[in-house]
């Protein structure tokens, strides 16, 4: 009798698990282009939430090509799934080639990376060490059409 009850409980919990995954998946499916646009806009708005002190932080790797390359590797590993291989954005994450992102100060990008945009699906990335986050910022800023920071056109890989 006990094992029957156990099996039933496992079945119910498994069903709840499947339902949860399905719910999340289905909810994602319901996203349309407008919702995507809204999501991207709210991500860009997060750039404006950065406090002044954070905005003014200097990037210790500014102009460092090796840091940009290391940041590119970290972006491939952690960011490309949501923001796209070339950072152009997907349905899950905003384009990082956008003017708002490219115009943002290194400190602002570092702040958003550290704090995430949790309500909009971007996790906090403080599990990357501080130097690693600055390496990602260096990489992101190298993605501009003509990066004044590194003097190199296009992405550094």
């Amino acid at each position, binding site marked *: 009798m*006990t094992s029957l009850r*156990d099996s039933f*409980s*496992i079945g119910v*919990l*498994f069903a*709840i*698990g499947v339902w*949860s*995954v*399905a719910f*999340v*998946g*289905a909810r*994602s*499916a319901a996203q349309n282009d407008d919702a995507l646009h809204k999501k991207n806009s709210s991500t860009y708005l997060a750039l404006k939430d950065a406090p002044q002190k954070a905005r003014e932080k200097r990037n210790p790797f500014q102009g460092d090509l*090796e840091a940009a*390359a*290391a*940041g*590119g*590797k*970290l972006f491939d*590993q*952690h960011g*490309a*799934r949501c923001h796209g291989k070339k950072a152009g954005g997907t349905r*899950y994450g905003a384009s990082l080639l956008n003017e708002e992102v490219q115009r943002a100060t290194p400190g602002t990008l570092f702040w958003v990376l*550290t*704090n*995430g*945009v*949790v*309500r*909009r*699906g*971007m*996790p*906090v990335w*403080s*599990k*990357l*060490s*501080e*130097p*690693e986050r600055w*390496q990602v910022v260096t990489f992101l800023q190298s993605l501009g059409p003509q990066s004044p920071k590194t003097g190199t056109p296009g992405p550094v890989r």
Partner: protein
Amino acid sequence: MVPPLITTLICALFFLLSSFVLAQESPYIVTYNHYLEEPGSLEVEYFSTFGTQRAGKDFHAFWMEFEYGATAWWTTEFYVDGQTTFNDSTIFTGFRFENRLRLLQREHTVNPIFYIEYEQISAADKILKEVEGHDVESDYAESNAVLRCERDHELEFKLLLSSTFKGWNVAVNPITTKNLSPSEPWEFAYAIGASRPLALKALPNRCNFCLENFVAGVEMYGGLGDTQSAGLHDTSHYLAPVAAWNLPSDWTLRLSSGFGLNGNSHRLLLRWGVSREFSGFGEVVRRLFGGRP
């Protein structure tokens, strides 16, 4: 004999899930920090615990974890536990269903996560994922046939407090557990951990053996009594050096050797685990339900 269709489906699922990300996992086995699973990612984990047992038989307990990042603030997990007691038997000992919820949106000096778990396990469960109340080594000395007769339904609550500074992560988890049987008291426990990657800067090239891929630390955990008899008497405590190796191929290996700190503790709990993160699992599910690519 597994039917070829099921084998093909499993292979296809793994093929679909081939866009992986590197897991940046903590080395802790018992302690939790405040980092949740990335949204849409599924992490499949296997852990083993080899434990010595005085006045009884040594054991090898094991569990599988399926951890899914439902959102950036909610991670849900399902565990299945089992154990082998040497010269006795191998048995399934129960399952756990846990949820972790991020309470604050942004990163703070101390970041709180609320943890709630329902577990339905037998007294033969020896994974020692938590050591609670007055859990002591002698509780596990009986044979599996005796221990498995007692089944527990428990709710467990934790407040995961975690902070990261200069590469160091420090996590403190106060724990309370209630056996759903009305006569059982609330039990208390703790888990504390500190860890740091061996290198804070990433190298530009992809590598398996770079120091940045290794995280080392230490954790300590044990019971704090219960509402009927609070305090440290008749409790067990462990100190465990821990290490994790995060491979670029998305595998993470963990190793921990826990040493009992008093006479009520198992002398040695040697643990190891392997996990793999499947990013985009939610997307695969969405496609199965007719979502657009």
